[in-house]
């Protein structure tokens, strides 16, 4: 029953996302065609674009044909380059996914061990330092952390490329920029969640059995503590995806985020619309996946 309820609400949300992104173009003040083509465009071009976007149709019909086209993977055409938007997305989307996944790994690789460390040293100065640093890092927006990392590792030390996607190491700086914020949140979550578990009876039992501290922490405590962390990782995937917009722009990483910013600068609204849609849908699906993962990881949830 729960799954059916979950799916119903999923479909409503997806429908809402589609409706909202569809309506975006109608929020353009004045005539969207004027804004996109500029005042100097000739009448024929305007009418062609208007017909192409279906802006001469009633709103309901427009939405209907928008949905119908989407079914066939047709996201419309770029006004600027006249290429089908789906082709642009096909090139850009994998780059964004690659970046997001690597930053997720970096975030987990830094955050979870640091969180365990802080929890084991709870109350000591090491815990204090880690907690303060993680609070600071999570408040650091990408458009500040990115340039600082770029300055240190690309300009001053010269270890990594400044920007672009030409070399295999190009991904490191943008991924670290994105991953740092996540690692800070994960550090705090791992610490809190591990601390809660460490006081439980079964941990005392495990210790009393004479298990090594390592086994107690890694096999017994961490397993239970990881559950809330899965949720956080899933939820943070969202800010990761939104973060790609700025990070990709800073590091000239050709993903969907940069495509979005470029399309805004060129007033290529159909592309803007498509990018927003793709990012939002990815987020919804990641959340759904997190939900199912959580159910698999925690048998109790299956009956909840």
């Amino acid at each position: 029953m729960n799954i059916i309820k979950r799916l119903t609400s999923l479909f409503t949300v997806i429908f809402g996302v589609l409706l909202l992104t569809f309506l975006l173009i109608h929020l353009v003040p004045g005539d969207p065609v004027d804004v996109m083509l500029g005042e100097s465009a000739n009448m024929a071009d305007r009418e062609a674009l208007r017909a192409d976007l279906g802006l001469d149709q009633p709103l309901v019909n427009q939405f209907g044909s928008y949905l119908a086209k989407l079914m066939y993977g047709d996201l419309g055409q770029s006004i600027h380059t006249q290429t089908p938007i789906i082709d642009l997305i096909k090139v850009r989307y994998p780059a964004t996914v690659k970046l997001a996944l690597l930053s997720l790994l970096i975030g987990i690789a830094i955050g979870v061990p640091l969180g365990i460390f802080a929890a084991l040293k709870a109350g000591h100065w090491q815990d204090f330092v880690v907690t303060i640093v993680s609070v600071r890092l999570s408040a650091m927006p990408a458009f500040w952390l990115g340039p600082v990392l770029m300055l240190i590792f690309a300009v001053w030390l010269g270890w990594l490329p400044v920007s672009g996607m030409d070399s295999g190491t190009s991904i490191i700086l943008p991924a670290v920029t994105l991953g740092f914020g996540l690692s800070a949140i994960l550090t705090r979550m791992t610490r809190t969640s591990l601390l809660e578990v460490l006081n439980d009876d079964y941990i005392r039992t495990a210790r009393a059995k004479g298990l090594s501290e390592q086994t107690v922490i890694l096999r017994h405590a961490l397993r239970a503590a990881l559950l809330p962390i899965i949720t956080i990782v899933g939820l943070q995937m969202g800010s990761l995806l939104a973060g790609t917009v700025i990070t990709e722009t800073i590091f000239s990483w050709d993903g969907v985020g940069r495509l979005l910013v470029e399309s805004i600068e060129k007033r290529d609204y159909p592309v803007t619309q498509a990018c927003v849609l793709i990012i939002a849908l990815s987020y919804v699906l990641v959340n759904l996946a997190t939900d199912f993962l959580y159910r698999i990881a925690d048998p109790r949830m299956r009956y909840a």
Partner: protein
Amino acid sequence: MKYTSYLILAFWLIAVLLGNVLQLNPNAIDLEVILQAPTAQHWFGADDLGRDILARVLSGVEVSFLVALIVTGVTMTIGVFVGLLAGFYGGRVDAVLMQITDIFLAFPGILLAIAFAAVLGPGLGNLIVALCLTGWVSYARLTRGQTLSLRHRQHVQAAESLGAGVPRLLFRHILPLLASILVVEATYSLASVMIAEASLSFLGLGIQAPDASWGAMLRDAVRYMLIAPHYVLIVGGCLMSLILAINLGGDYLRDALDVRKPD
């Protein structure tokens, strides 16, 4: 730590006043000092057009505060209202309102604000509208959750059985109990709105040249980072100090008002 954060906050508030009192000219161009590192004359150095970075930082912090206060005020009012209604009436009203918030929450982070700002066109007014359109959701969620449990408190039911109307119940008996949690939430949201404003301005969607905003300055600064690293470091450092001070202030406020973490 506590007093440091208050001091930084006070420093920036004074900076806002000072910027107005001193009548600095953030748009004055001096071609002699383009991208110059800090000197006795220009404490923070000069930007790519030879404008004094200090004067522009001071004028930018004013914009940050202005946007943060307006957006927080508007989004809190809308969000609290929606949340009260959803939590109080429950049933269908609640289902519909929460479905709407779910749709807004399906857009990660400031993506929806970017989209709104993009189609509305650049400018400070549109930026504020875009942030207001998307920011009310978290308040609605928070208020709804709290109202749901407060609704069945005895003092609310007592007032209801004595014939108090819905507005009286909501605003006299439920809202006051939400005050402290909302104050803490609003403090954090000041910081997040400032970051959002800077992000949008960084993408060129906020305040337009020649007016100064920290996000827009950072955008220029990144462009000239190789020759003038002081620019990006100073502006970013200012932003960070303010955000941290506000967030720490929020932490202390939360402890002082004894508000449990919403998570």
